[in-house]
């Protein structure tokens, strides 16, 4: 049974990498901005993955992205690790605290904002310097918009996907 659960985590990790490559195809409105499509599987599995499984999925996502994009030994990887883990922790916390009273849109926006705050702090501290705070509001607005879009798609996918329902019923039962 454990093997099956680790298998679905690995598969969701692969889905994160797939969405990450899809995102690469979209033009970026501003440099350094990301839509966050790779977070979709993380959002979709919050309901039936245990917190440590979600964190393992995030670890697989950032490591996989680092290996595929070749950014494992660069600042990009550190930004990705910091942003992804804080965002995942924020999403786990709000989804557990509010349960069914919060939609995936709300959870996604929380995650996006947390990730953006951490990445802005890192870029101000290590790359651009204090003057870069002037662009922080732009990134926060863009981050919130992308959080809403990803959350809306996740919500729709959770409602309509037969496959996700099957996965959920199989792995909730074996967890």
């Amino acid at each position, binding site marked *: 049974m454990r*093997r*099956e659960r*680790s*298998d*679905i*985590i*690995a*598969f969701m*990790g*692969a*889905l994160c*990498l*797939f969405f990450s490559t899809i995102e690469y195809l979209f033009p970026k409105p501003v*440099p*350094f901005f990301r839509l966050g499509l790779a977070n979709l599987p993380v959002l979709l599995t919050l309901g039936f993955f245990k917190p440590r499984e979600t964190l*393992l999925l995030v*670890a*697989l996502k950032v*490591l*996989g992205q*680092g*290996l*595929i*994009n*070749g*950014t*494992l*030994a*660069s*600042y*990009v*990887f550190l930004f990705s690790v910091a942003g992804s883990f804080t965002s995942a922790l924020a999403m786990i916390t709000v989804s557990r605290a509010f349960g069914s009273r919060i939609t995936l849109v709300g959870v996604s926006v929380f995650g996006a904002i947390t990730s953006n705050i951490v990445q802005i702090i890192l870029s101000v501290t290590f*790359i*651009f*310097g*204090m*003057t*870069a705070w002037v662009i922080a509001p732009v990134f926060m607005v863009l981050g919130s918009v992308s959080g809403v879009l990803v959350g809306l798609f996740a919500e*729709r*996918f959770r409602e*309509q*996907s*037969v*496959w996700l329902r*099957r*996965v959920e019923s*199989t*792995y909730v039962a*074996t967890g």
Partner: protein
Amino acid sequence: MSRPGDSRFLRRNIGPVILFVCGAAVIPAFLFQRSVVVKLVQVIVFAVLATAAGKKIKPVYFLVMVTSITFFNVLSPLGRVLIQIGPFPVTETALVSGVVKGLTIVGLVFISLFSIRPDLRLPGRMGGMIGRVFFYFERIIEGKRRKLEPRRLIASIDEILEEIFEPGVPEAEAKATIIKTTRLGYLIAFAIPVVNWVLLLPFFATIGAV
């Protein structure tokens, strides 16, 4: 054997571990480099190596990156004033430190791009899990060639997912393709760090003089 001009020359001639070690050996030599000109040349060479490893480089993206890092550094004046643009003085120390910082960050990305690739196997349980992730990733990419219909997007995604991953049914293990390092590959993997460390000799000479 592939020629050095081939877009995946490094990938065909050097195994993932040797290439990773090569990249790791270059990083300190690149970080300690103080000359802006040498650093610029190193960054260009790393970009060429990244291309030889089969990676696509977007020059505009990296130019914007160096420019924006330099711009934000120049906003905090430091050192001799070079020119005055309206109310903003462009100072020498701030400008040089901005360019060096920008080149360093972009150079590290290029080193990472040429020295790290998906077939690099990480040790331990996590390494095994990553191998599994790549196995499924390849299957998803193959599945993507089937039709994704925008009008019934979620249903068509569902069909692909159903085909690739049936919940509860274990899959066969992935087979990894092993790339062995050729003699030319060893030579290149040895030469890259050596040249970068030799370029540091003037820096060590300065320390000796102090």
